[in-house]
């Protein structure tokens, strides 16, 4: 980006604006849609912004048992997710192309999980503990699915750089709607679990015994909580973004249209996915903990189909 | 076939050896043993007379004095000291083992046909037959008798068999060696006899089949 040209800078500003502002909106969309499904008017679309601001202005309470892990986790997670937002191909608007290696992306996500789990254990409360243990269990089941979906795509495009794989000018992937679609579905199912939405976890419940993510952040408050929430929103943005990208690649129309349409459609598709999450949450129920593996099995199955397609693609 | 004289004597020795198997009465065993050894001494002497190897006369004399006189006498005195009349009993009944010994005589005749290398007509089949059957009866004696003293006798009989083999097949080994052997046997019997006393002292019997303390 050494050469100063205005539209590059413009793109960058737009990009930053999007990933800083969009995440709360997504949550707003989800909540609004759910409210509509439950015949409520629901909170305004921008409520999440207000919540964040309110939290930032509150006074913080910290358990005296915690260590520096607890203090720094929120900040670390937010910054990790910001880095991820720059790397990962969650939208087709990428003003500059840093090498978005798929293993790096996965492991950065894992790193955020590492910190989250530790901070949950840090206060030494019972809820944080089992929240953490459930979190790692879910992650364990989901991880292979995610990595296999992305690896299949990468293996077809013969590179592990997602930036290249997801750019619309990669001939190897041009007519692979099946692969893209299945990968998209797999990733979407996986991200339901990763984002601790229904049916893996109920973000709105306040029965601690059933929650995963909420249980982990039970001790956070005020600015700390705000950061955690924002990090979670960012994560929603990125994961939904990646799966929506996959789905977009499945539609041949997008392979030859203008940049602008792509950008808009990618943003729209993310919102659509958010809405569909809301729909799922309103029609589905939270599964029992012991039944979860059966649900995750679907996304793993998707990933296996992807692998088969990838293998058959460059069959020699 | 015509029986050479020394072969006849060898056979006599073999038969005496088999007779030893016949009884568990130790004195009788010893007397049979000395007769058997005398026969062997006679064989030696006779072969000496045939082959004009003078050192064999000396050997014969040595065998007669040491093996057939002094050793039985020594063992007799041992028996007297520890006053054990008869063998405690045999794994195989004495008459049966004697019959076995007789069969062994036949067997050893067959084996002696098989010994590779003994092809020259110089060597006598019957000599080796006798030697081997003596060896076998010694083995039987050692395997079937419980009393320590019968084992000594058995060892002596085996040794006699080997000696007879040497005499009949090779017409005696060098004098020094023969004498060495005699001395060796004498010392061995002495040591064994001394041990015998101690066995009697500390176990109140000489039944070696009960010495089974040492095992894993």
């Amino acid at each position, binding site marked *: 980006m050494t050469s100063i040209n205005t539209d590059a800078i413009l793109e960058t500003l737009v990009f930053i604006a999007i990933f800083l502002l969009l995440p709360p909106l997504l949550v707003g969309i989800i909540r609004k849609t759910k409210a509509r499904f439950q015949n409520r008017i629901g909170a305004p679309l921008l409520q999440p912004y207000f919540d964040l601001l309110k939290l930032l202005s509150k006074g913080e309470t910290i358990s005296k048992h915690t260590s520096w892990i607890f203090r720094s986790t929120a900040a670390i997670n937010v910054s990790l997710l910001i880095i991820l937002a720059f790397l990962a191909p969650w939208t087709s608007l990428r003003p500059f192309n840093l090498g978005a290696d798929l293993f790096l992306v996965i492991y950065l996500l894992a790193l955020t999980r590492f910190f989250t789990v530790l901070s949950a254990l840090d206060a030494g409360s019972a809820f944080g503990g089992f929240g953490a243990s459930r979190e790692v269990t879910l992650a364990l089941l989901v991880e292979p699915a995610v990595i296999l979906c992305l690896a299949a795509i990468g293996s077809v495009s013969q590179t592990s750089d997602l930036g290249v794989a997801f750019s619309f000018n990669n001939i190897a992937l041009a007519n692979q709607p099946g692969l893209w679609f299945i990968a998209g579905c797999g990733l979407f199912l996986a991200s339901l679990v990763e984002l601790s939405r229904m049916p893996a976890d109920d973000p709105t419940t306040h029965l601690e015994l059933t929650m995963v993510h909420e249980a982990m952040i039970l001790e956070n408050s005020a600015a700390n909580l705000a950061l955690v929430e924002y990090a979670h929103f960012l994560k929603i943005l990125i994961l939904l973004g990646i799966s929506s990208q996959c789905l977009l690649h499945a539609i041949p129309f997008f392979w030859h249209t203008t940049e602008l349409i792509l950008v808009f459609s990618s943003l729209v598709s993310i919102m659509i996915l958010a809405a569909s999450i809301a729909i799922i949450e309103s029609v589905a129920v939270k599964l029992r903990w012991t039944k979860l593996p059966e649900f995750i099995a679907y996304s793993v199955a998707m990933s296996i189909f992807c692998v088969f397609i990838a293998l058959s693609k460059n069959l020699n | 076939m015509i029986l050479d004289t020394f072969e006849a004597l060898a056979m006599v020795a073999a038969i005496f050896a088999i007779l030893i198997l016949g009884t568990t009465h130790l004195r009788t065993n010893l007397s049979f043993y000395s007769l058997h050894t005398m026969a062997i001494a006679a064989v030696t002497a006779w072969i000496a007379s045939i082959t004009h190897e003078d050192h064999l006369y000396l050997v014969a004399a040595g065998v007669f004095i040491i093996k057939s006189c002094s050793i039985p006498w020594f063992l007799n005195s041992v028996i007297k000291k520890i006053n054990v009349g008869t063998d405690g009993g045999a794994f195989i009944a004495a008459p049966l083992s004697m019959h076995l010994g007789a069969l062994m005589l036949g067997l050893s005749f067959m084996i002696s046909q098989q010994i590779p*290398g*003994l092809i020259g007509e110089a060597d006598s089949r019957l000599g080796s037959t006798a030697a081997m059957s003596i060896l076998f009866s010694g083995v039987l004696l050692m395997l079937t008798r419980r009393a320590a003293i019968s084992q000594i006798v058995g060892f002596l009989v085996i040794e006699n068999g080997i000696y007879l083999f040497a005499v009949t097949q*090779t017409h005696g080994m060098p004098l020094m060696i023969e004498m060495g*052997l005699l001395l*060796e046997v004498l*010392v061995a019997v002495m*040591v064994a006899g001394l041990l015998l006393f101690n*066995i009697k002292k500390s*176990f109140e019997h000489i039944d070696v089949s009960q*010495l089974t303390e040492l095992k894993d």
Partner: protein
Amino acid sequence: MNDLLYLTALPASLALLSLFIRDVKLTRKLVPVLIWWQLGIVALVLHPCLINGQRMEFTSGLAVDKMGTYFILLATFVVSCCITHADYFFAAAEAHGDAYEDQQLRLFYASVNLFLLAMTSVFLCDNLGYLWIAIEATTLSSAPLVYFEKNKFALEATWKYLIVCSVGIAFALLGTVFIFAASQRGTLAVPTLNISELISQAQTLNFPLLRLGFIFCLIGYGTKAGIFPLHTWLPDAHAESPAPASAMLSGSLLNCALFGIWKVSSIINAAQPHSHVHQLVAILGTVTVVAASLLLLRQHNFKRLWAYSSIENVGLMVFAIGLGSGPLFFLQALNHSLAKVALFLLTGNIIQASGTKKLNKMHGVIEDCPIWALLVTLAAFAVTGAPPFGAFVAEMSMLSLSMTDERWALALIMTVAIAISFVAICAHVGKVILGPAKQGFKKFQPIRASIIPALLVLGTLVLGLVVNTEAWSGPWSMIK
């Protein structure tokens, strides 16, 4: 002839002396000194043979070659080490309260000297008949050593030792007769038992008889050496005799019997190299090693443990003989003697101190007496052929030799068996060494007791670091 006198005079006279000296204390101090002196004499007398390997002929049938010299030196060295340590052993026994009677000790010292005499003569023999006599003489002279303790167990062990070995040896006599017959019925008939003559005209001997003779000698001397199914007397005798005596039995007596086998096998080698009889010997050695290593797994008695490990090493030496490599046979014998003597002596100390032979009653020697523990561990490693000790060199050379000799199946089996025996011995020794202290060791002087073993262990360590066996890699190179 004079040389012969020099070699034998001292032990013979000592045998008589030690019977008649009143004061046993004097004997205990005198004999070791003189036996070390004897070692010097032997080295002096045999130095031409030692240095430029020439054969020394004393009379007809009495001669010594390089290997014989080595073995004589080894035997004398072992005896002098043991007899030196025996002084401490008896002193410790007195300190411990169960002193031995003077008569016992006199007999002990007398028979040790006779034993030495007999062994020396074994290696001097150049005549199968004399060889047989000498080896039987070793049996007879060592019987009193086994019977030293004068209890029931010792008696039983002695009886078995005497009878089984004598019977076995009797077969060796039969074998000797057969070989004599073979020499008579050869193409050019010169009836002789003289080993060097037999070797020189081995081609002309009557081979079937020779082979038969060899097999009988193998059985006979093998019984004395403790080859697997014939080994039954060995653990009893080694376990029941006092520590110095067991050390001598294991460290030098076995070598005599094996030396006999080696002599006879060198005849048959000369007659017909690569005869399958040698295959038989190698297989016998392997079987012995395998059986011993399995038997080692289940031992409850500290001294029987080492007895079985001696059987294993005998198997290795027989294997070396079967490969026809004399130097390796001697190297293995040397290392085994050094390590095993050290082990038996130390074991004797530990048994005296802890008052039991039972392995499961011993523990924590390392707490009570670190130096003994260290030495026992090192010697155990040495005897199981762990590097960098000498036995490793010998075993490795044997294995590679048998590989080059296309006997790789035997080599691989051997490797496994050696590993098993290592594990077994280490398990047992570990139980003895490790664990909480026993507090029984106060009145013993550990340092004085560990001088000789330390020297021996050091010796085998040095052997492992300097010996070069590359020259002996050719299978039949060293027989001529």
